[in-house]
C-alpha cells in the first residue's frame, strides 16, 4: 500500500510525490470551508450490544436515510390518494351503520330518512372539501386547521384546532381499527373474542410500516385501497342495477338485529332523531382534512396535486356513502348488536351472495382499507406534532426525524394512545364514535372561520365567492358541532370537551417553559463576549492515591493553578497514611482531609465546598469551582456495579450547585503503558 508521508519516487528523477492521509474520510466529508458533514459511519455504534440493536433496527425499519434522500420521499398523486384518503373513504364502511343505528329506534317511518340524511352529509362533504381545496392552495406548507386558525384568528384558536386534530387522529386509529376487526368477525364470528388482540397486532404492524418511512408505507397501502374501491363500486353498481330492474331482495331481519321501534315517531322527536343520525353519520367526513395537512408530502406542484386529490377523494367518498345507504335502505338492511354482521357486510352479502368469493374478497378489502386507513393518521399526526414542536408547543423531540426520515416520536405516541383507547373501550366502534365527531367538527369550524378571514384580508379577485363558500361551510359545521356535543355529551363527547382545553393548557405551559428558557439563554444583540475574568479553582475529591487520582489532579492543574485534593474519610489512620504518601508523591498539591465520624461522604464534601465559598473575599466576584472527579472506566457492564458509586453520588449531589462545574476524568485500564510514560507520574 502506498501511503504515509514518505516520498514515493516517480519514473523520472525529481518526480517525487507524497500521499496525504485522509483520516477524516471514514467518518466525515469536507463540504465547505471549516465545515464537515458526518457520514453514516460516524453514528455507527461501537459496542457489541449497540451493533446488534442497530442491526435489528435495520431489519425492522430499513437502512438509515440521509436528509438528502428526503426529496425521494415525496408522494405522487396515485400514492397520495390511498395514503391520505383511506381514512375518509373507509368511513363509508361504518357511516351508514351509524345513521341506521339511530333511526331504527324510530321504526320504519324513521328509517326511510336515512337517504335524505346521507344526502345532507354528502352536501356538507362537498362544501367542506371545496373549502379544504382552498386551504391546500392558500397554505402549501401544510398544517391544515392549526395553521389556518393560528394565522387568521388567534394563537389560542390554532391550539384548539391542533388539540382537536390530535384527538381526531388518535380516534381515527382507534375507530378504524375497531371497525376493521368488526368486518373480520362479520365473516368469521369466532374471532369476536380475539378482537382486541387482532387490533393491537394491526396497530403494531402499521407502526413499524410507518417507522420505515412514507414511501414504503405508501406502496404497501396503495393496492388494498384500490381493491376496496373497485369492489365497493362494483357492489354499488350491481346493487343499483338490481334496484333498477326490480330484483332487489327484501332481506329478513337478522336474528341479532337491533330491535326496530314500533311506536311511530313524528314531529319534534323525528327531527331530533334525524339530527342525531346526521351527527352519527357525519363521521363520514372524518379524515377530509388530512390532505390539507399533508400538502408538503405531495410531489410538485404540491398545492395543485393536493387540491385535485382532495376533489377525487370527495367524489369517491360521496359515491360510496350514498350508494351503500341507498342499497341498505332499499334492501331493508338493519344494524345488529355488537358482535353481529356490520351493515356494509350485510349489503355485500345481499349483492354478492353470502359466503361467495366476492363477498369474502370485499370483506377482506374492507377490513384491509380500515386497518390501512389508520395510516392517514400515522402520516398526519406526526407531521402536526412536528409543526407544533417547531412552534414550541410540544416537546422538541417530536420535530426530530428518525433513521427513515419519519417523525418517530409522533408515530410511537399515536400508536400507544390509540392502543390504550382500544383496550379501554373493548374494541367497540359505537362506543368510540361519539368521541370521534367532536374534534373533527371543531377543526372544520375553526378552519373555515379562519379561511373567511383569510379571504377578507387578501381580497383577491373573487374573494367574496371563496369567503362565501367557507362561511356557509363554517356555519354548517358549527351547527353540526353543537348538535353532536349536545346530543352525544353523555355518551362520551364530554371527554373531548374536557380534553381539548386540557391539551391547549399543556401546550401553552410547554410554550411558556421554552420561551422562558430561551429568554434566559439569549445574548443581548449588542453583546460582545470578553475573555473570562472570574477566578477558577479546582477541587479533586479522592478516596486514596492511585493512577486515576493522579490523572484527575493533572487535568485539574491544566484548568487552574489553584488545585486541592479533598479526602473525606471515616478512618483517621487510613487518612493519615494517605496524607503521608500524598505529600511525598504529589508535592505542590495540598490535600485536605475531612474526617467524617458519621461515615457520610457526600454531605461533608458539599459542606466543605460551601465553606470554601464563604471564605472567599466578599468584595470579589465568586470563583468558578471545578470539581474534578476521578473515575475508573469499567470494561464490562457488570463492572459498573463494582466501581464509581461514590463518584456518581457526588456528581448527582453537585447538579445545579451555583458557580460549580463538574468534570469527570475517566481512567481506562487499557492505558497503563501510556501512563507509565508520563514522567510526572512516576518520578518520586
Amino acid at each position, binding site marked *: 500500500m502506498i501511503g504515509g508521508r514518505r516520498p514515493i519516487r*516517480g519514473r*523520472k528523477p525529481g*518526480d517525487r*510525490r507524497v*500521499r496525504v492521509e*485522509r483520516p477524516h*474520510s471514514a467518518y466525515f*466529508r469536507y*463540504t465547505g470551508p471549516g465545515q464537515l458533514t458526518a457520514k453514516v459511519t460516524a453514528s455507527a455504534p461501537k459496542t457489541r450490544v449497540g451493533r446488534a440493536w442497530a442491526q435489528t433496527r435495520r431489519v425492522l425499519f430499513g437502512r438509515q436515510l440521509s436528509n438528502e434522500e428526503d426529496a425521494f420521499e415525496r408522494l405522487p398523486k396515485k400514492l397520495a390518494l390511498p395514503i391520505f384518503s383511506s381514512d375518509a373513504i373507509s368511513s363509508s364502511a361504518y357511516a351508514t351503520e351509524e345513521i341506521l343505528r339511530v333511526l331504527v329506534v324510530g321504526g320504519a317511518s324513521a328509517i326511510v330518512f336515512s337517504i335524505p340524511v346521507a344526502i345532507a352529509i354528502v352536501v356538507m362533504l362537498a362544501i367542506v372539501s371545496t373549502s379544504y381545496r382552498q386551504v391546500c392552495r392558500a397554505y402549501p406548507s401544510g398544517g391544515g386547521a392549526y395553521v389556518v386558525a393560528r394565522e387568521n384568528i388567534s394563537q389560542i384558536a390554532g391550539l384548539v384546532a391542533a388539540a382537536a386534530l390530535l384527538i381526531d387522529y388518535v380516534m381515527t386509529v382507534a375507530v378504524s381499527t375497531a371497525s376493521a376487526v368488526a368486518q373480520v368477525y362479520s365473516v368469521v364470528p369466532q374471532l369476536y373474542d380475539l378482537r382486541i388482540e387482532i387490533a393491537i397486532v394491526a396497530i403494531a404492524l402499521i407502526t413499524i410500516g410507518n417507522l420505515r418511512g412514507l414511501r414504503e408505507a405508501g406502496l404497501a397501502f396503495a393496492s388494498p385501497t384500490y381493491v376496496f374501491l373497485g369492489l365497493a363500486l362494483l357492489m354499488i353498481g350491481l346493487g343499483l342495477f338490481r334496484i333498477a330492474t326490480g330484483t332487489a331482495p327484501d332481506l329478513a331481519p337478522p336474528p341479532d338485529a337491533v330491535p326496530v321501534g314500533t311506536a311511530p315517531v313524528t314531529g319534534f322527536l323525528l327531527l331530533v332523531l334525524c339530527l342525531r343520525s346526521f351527527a352519527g353519520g357525519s363521521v363520514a367526513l372524518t379524515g377530509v382534512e388530512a390532505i390539507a395537512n399533508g400538502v408538503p408530502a405531495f410531489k410538485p406542484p404540491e398545492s395543485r396535486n393536493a387540491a385535485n386529490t382532495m376533489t377525487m377523494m370527495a367524489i369517491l367518498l360521496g359515491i360510496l356513502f350514498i350508494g351503500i345507504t341507498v342499497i341498505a335502505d332499499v334492501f331493508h338492511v338493519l344494524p345488529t348488536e355488537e358482535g353481529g354482521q356490520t351493515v356494509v357486510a350485510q349489503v355485500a352479502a345481499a349483492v354478492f351472495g353470502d359466503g361467495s368469493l366476492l363477498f369474502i374478497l370485499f370483506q377482506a378489502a374492507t377490513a384491509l382499507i380500515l386497518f390501512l386507513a389508520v395510516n392517514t393518521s400515522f402520516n398526519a399526526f406526526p407531521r402536526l406534532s412536528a409543526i407544533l414542536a417547531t412552534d414550541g408547543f410540544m416537546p422538541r423531540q417530536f420535530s426530530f426525524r428518525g433513521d427513515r426520515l419519519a417523525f418517530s416520536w409522533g408515530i410511537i405516541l399515536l400508536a400507544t394512545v390509540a392502543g390504550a383507547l382500544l383496550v379501554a373501550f373493548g374494541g367497540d366502534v359505537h362506543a368510540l364514535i361519539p368521541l370521534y365527531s367532536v374534534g373533527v367538527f371543531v377543526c372544520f369550524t375553526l378552519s373555515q372561520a379562519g379561511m373567511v378571514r383569510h379571504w377578507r384580508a387578501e381580497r383577491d379577485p373573487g374573494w367574496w365567492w371563496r369567503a362565501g363558500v367557507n362561511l356557509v361551510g363554517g356555519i354548517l359545521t358549527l351547527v353540526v358541532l353543537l348538535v353532536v356535543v349536545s346530543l352525544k355529551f353523555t355518551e362520551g363527547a364530554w371527554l373531548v370537551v374536557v380534553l381539548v382545553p386540557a391539551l391547549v393548557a399543556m401546550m401553552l405551559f410547554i410554550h411558556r417553559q421554552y420561551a422562558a428558557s430561551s429568554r434566559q439563554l439569549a445574548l443581548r444583540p449588542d453583546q460582545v463576549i470578553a475573555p473570562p475574568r472570574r477566578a477558577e479553582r479546582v477541587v479533586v475529591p479522592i478516596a486514596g492515591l492511585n493512577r486515576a487520582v493522579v490523572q484527575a489532579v493533572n487535568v485539574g492543574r491544566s484548568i487552574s493553578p489553584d488545585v486541592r485534593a479533598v479526602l473525606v474519610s471515616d478512618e483517621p489512620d487510613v487518612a493519615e497514611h494517605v496524607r503521608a504518601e500524598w505529600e511525598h508523591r504529589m508535592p505542590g498539591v495540598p490535600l485536605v482531609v475531612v474526617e467524617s465520624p458519621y461515615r457520610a461522604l457526600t454531605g461533608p464534601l458539599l459542606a466543605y465546598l460551601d465553606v470554601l465559598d464563604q471564605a472567599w473575599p466578599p468584595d470579589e466576584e465568586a470563583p468558578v469551582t471545578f470539581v474534578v472527579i476521578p473515575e475508573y472506566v469499567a470494561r464490562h457492564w457488570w463492572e459498573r456495579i463494582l466501581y464509581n458509586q461514590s463518584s456518581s453520588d457526588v456528581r448527582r449531589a453537585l447538579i445545579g450547585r451555583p458557580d460549580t462545574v463538574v468534570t469527570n476524568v475517566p481512567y481506562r485500564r487499557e492505558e497503563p503503558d501510556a501512563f507509565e510514560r508520563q514522567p510526572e507520574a512516576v518520578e518520586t
Partner: protein
Amino acid sequence: MNDSPRPALRRIVLALNGAPTDRLVVSYAASLGKPAKAELVALHVVEIDWTLPLDGSVSGLTEEAQRVLDIAEADAEHLGVRLEPVLLKARNVGAAIVDEAASQEADLLVLGLPYRKKFGGDFVMGSTVPYVFKNAPCTVWVVREPMPQEGA
C-alpha cells in the same frame, strides 16, 4: 476498420482539479466503470513549490484538497459507484498523475479541461494535459467543459 475487442476496464483513474469539470469526469467515469465493474480511483494532486518541503504540512491547502475528493466521492455515491480517493502532493502535477496511474496499473485516465472565461474565454491546455498525453501508460480521456453557449 479495427474490429479487435475492446480492452477490459479494470481500473479507471480520475484526475480531478477542483474545477466544475470534476462532476463531468466522475459522471463519465461512472457511466463507463459501472457496467464494467471497474475500480474508480479519484486523484487530486496539490502542487508544492520547490521552496517548501514536500512532506511538510501546507496550511489551508489540504482541507481544500480533501474537499475536492470528498465532493467527488459524494457524486460517485449518488451515481451508485464506489470511488477510492487519493490525495497527493508533488512538484509537478502531470508527472504525479502519470506516475500514480502507472503504479495503480490504470486502464484509463480521465481528466477535465475547464473553460476559462477570463481573457475572452478559451480552453487553455496548460502543461498538465499535454504532459499526460505524452507520458501516460494507458488510454487518456479529456472531458472538455461545455462552452457557455453549449451549456446555456
